């Protein structure tokens, strides 16, 4: 219960907070890691989430939250250093490798990650997944993209529209 006081400032690394996913699973993480989320940061600064009363996250299920936290924990040290200055090339390469593997995941998970990163406002994660999706999309035709992303099949009107677009912008399809 006294944790909020002692956890202030640079001792944040020792301080733990509890996050509760939508399916009521509790996750205990360092405050520094959770603070990567802009949304959580304010709550944590106010002393919330410590001890028994966790921070409920009704939009995020436990599978996604564990994935998000995996990212946060990995990136927290670098973020705490204020980014690059004293990070060695090895560290950076390591993070990069981690990122690449991290997003090498199933599409449905990727989608929940986007939503979670968006809701929690984790900047690094947002751009990481956005980049991944952009890479998936790049170079594909609209129809392929619809399939890739699991859009419903186009209605006849949509199909006609796509064909017209293709005629008009043929150069963009090469």
């Amino acid at each position: 219960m006294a944790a909020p006081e002692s956890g202030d400032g640079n001792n944040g690394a020792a301080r733990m907070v509890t996050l509760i996913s939508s399916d009521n699973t509790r996750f205990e993480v360092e405050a520094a890691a959770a603070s990567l989320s802009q949304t959580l940061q304010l709550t944590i600064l106010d002393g919330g989430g410590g001890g028994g009363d966790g921070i409920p996250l009704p939009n995020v299920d436990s599978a996604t939250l564990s994935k998000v936290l995996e990212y946060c924990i990995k990136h927290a040290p670098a973020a705490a250093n204020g980014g690059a200055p004293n990070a060695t090339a090895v560290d950076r390469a390591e993070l990069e490798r981690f990122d690449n593997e991290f997003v090498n995941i199933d599409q449905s998970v990727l989608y929940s990650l986007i939503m979670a990163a968006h809701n929690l406002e984790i900047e690094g994660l947002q751009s990481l997944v956005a980049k991944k999706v952009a890479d998936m999309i790049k170079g594909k035709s609209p129809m392929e993209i619809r399939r890739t992303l699991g859009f419903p099949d186009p209605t006849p009107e949509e199909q006609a529209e796509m064909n017209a677009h293709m005629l008009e912008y043929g150069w963009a399809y090469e």
Partner: protein
Amino acid sequence: MMASQWPYSRPTNRGRPAPAASSWGALPLDALSEILLRLPAKDLCRLRAVCSSWRSVTSDPLFIGAHAARHPGPLFLAKFRGDRAHIHVVDLSGTVIKRMPETSASHQVLSTRLNLACLATEWNRCRVLNPATGAVRVLPEGPAPNHVNRVNLSNPYTFFALGRVTSTGVYKVFRMFNRPGFMSMGQQLFELFTINGCTDHARWREVQSPVHVVKPWTGVVADGVVYFFVMDNIGNVIPPDFIVSFDLGREEWRRGLTGPISGNAGALEQYRKKKAELDLAELKGSLVIAHYHENPCRMDLWFLTNFENGIWVSCSYVIQEPTPLQKWKWDILIQLLHIYVMDLLVYSSRDVGNVWSRNFDFHLPSCLVCMWNRECSVKEEADDDAVKDEEADEVDVKEEADGANVKEEEADEIGVKEEQDENDVSEDEVEIIDPPPRPKKLRCEDDGVDFIDLTTSHPVPYLNAKPVRALPPPGAVPTNEWRMVVAPPPAELEQYPPDHREWHLFKKSYATGLSTCRGRKLLDAGEVVHFAFPSYDWLYGRARVSARQATALAEIVRFSTNRSGEIGKLSPVWAKCLAPLVSSSKVLIQGKMVFPMVELRLMQEVLLYVSFYVNRSCLYLIDPENARHPDNPLRPLFKLLKRFGES
């Protein structure tokens, strides 16, 4: 039962995890635009077809602005050798971002960094293209009313320039007719066309010609002013960097301006031999004279910062050992000087709001930070890494470019443009380029994309008098404008010296006259003028005049040409000196026009090139011993000759 309901639509989904069917479509707009922002414009253009929410995101002006800020690379308008049927918008890496159909293969892109681009041939076909919308406007071919009978429409040689008047935002196209035989015709005709909304009554308007004969292929537009170098005239008194300019806003010629190079008197002779090393270009909205040195390989850029006071600021680039990357940059740098720039990108057509208009200032590729607001010394900085760190993004782009360009088919004929946003270009940096010493007009074959050098893209009229004609654009009114053009009488160019037994050639000199008539005159350079000296009779015509009038009349020396009749009179200083000498048969003069003229104004100064002959009986008067004698009647002539720089 289910099978019959979905006979074949499911296979596309099979084997794929099935997220909630509409989940990706329901992505928050923020997250969606975050993704789309990372895609190049060409992909975006294609992806708009995916679904309506994607389309609306990519049509949002805020999104477009953000995308433009994230992908700031310069854009080129290009025509490729292998595909003349389209105009391409290309980024620095050589990726085609947009392709627009082009109906005539022979048009060249001459865009400036404006929201419009100009496509023209040298044979009087000109169109203005809006790269954002693809809208094309074909400009009329017919000449201005006053030029109707003076242009040979069947074989015109034209120069076009598109400029924007800063104060009003109006676009104007400048046209010059410069027929292959213009040296014998002595005419360059200038016209102006204002591009605005209403198209029906628009026509070319006549513009007065400058005193000088301009070099059409040097024309460059900077900040609403068209600049030209001028041709050599008889007597060759024009410095190589002498510039004439036409203000598109005020629609008048400005006074001539001598560049910074010949201002250095010692070097003038040397530069004169090397005229080919000078080029006009536009950079950062300023006129630039580029001066190439072969050995050591160096390029000086002179920026015109103040026209009124003729202030030029210089900037040098030293070219050293090349790396492939730098070599590419060097090519770009050279091209920058020759290309016209456009400011606009675009991935869509038609819908308003899809225009990516960027009013970026233009600058050199950022590794070539150009410090142009003060004298720039060149220092070495071989370390490429420093540059890379500083401009990591830019460099990435360029490295890709090397690879991408190789794949690109050979390209040619480009008007190209380049522009980048200038984020407070660090003024203190001096960049050094280490490209290879290479002739400035060498084509970069290995780069695939072949940026044409506009200074060589205009065939010299004498060498290419009859190029293939442009096809008329579809929809153009078939021209029944074949007009009978009556050839004007030939200029009288031959002049025979007087009998040498009686007359001794003394000096040749320039002399000035004033026109006494106005209007259209055919005056060619070198055309013979005839002088009419007054008689000393008190009878002038048949009317008796007073002594005072007679004296005044005696000092009027008129001159004329066979073709155009009376042109003007000698200026008073010359007339006063020459009239008595000629009437007493001590001196004889013959004259030629120096500059070709088309339009005369009243009291316009006319420069003549005059040969002075002295009667053999008066040779003693030009003897140096007697020349200074106070009673020598030729003394005033000597003074005048000295003043006007005898040759």
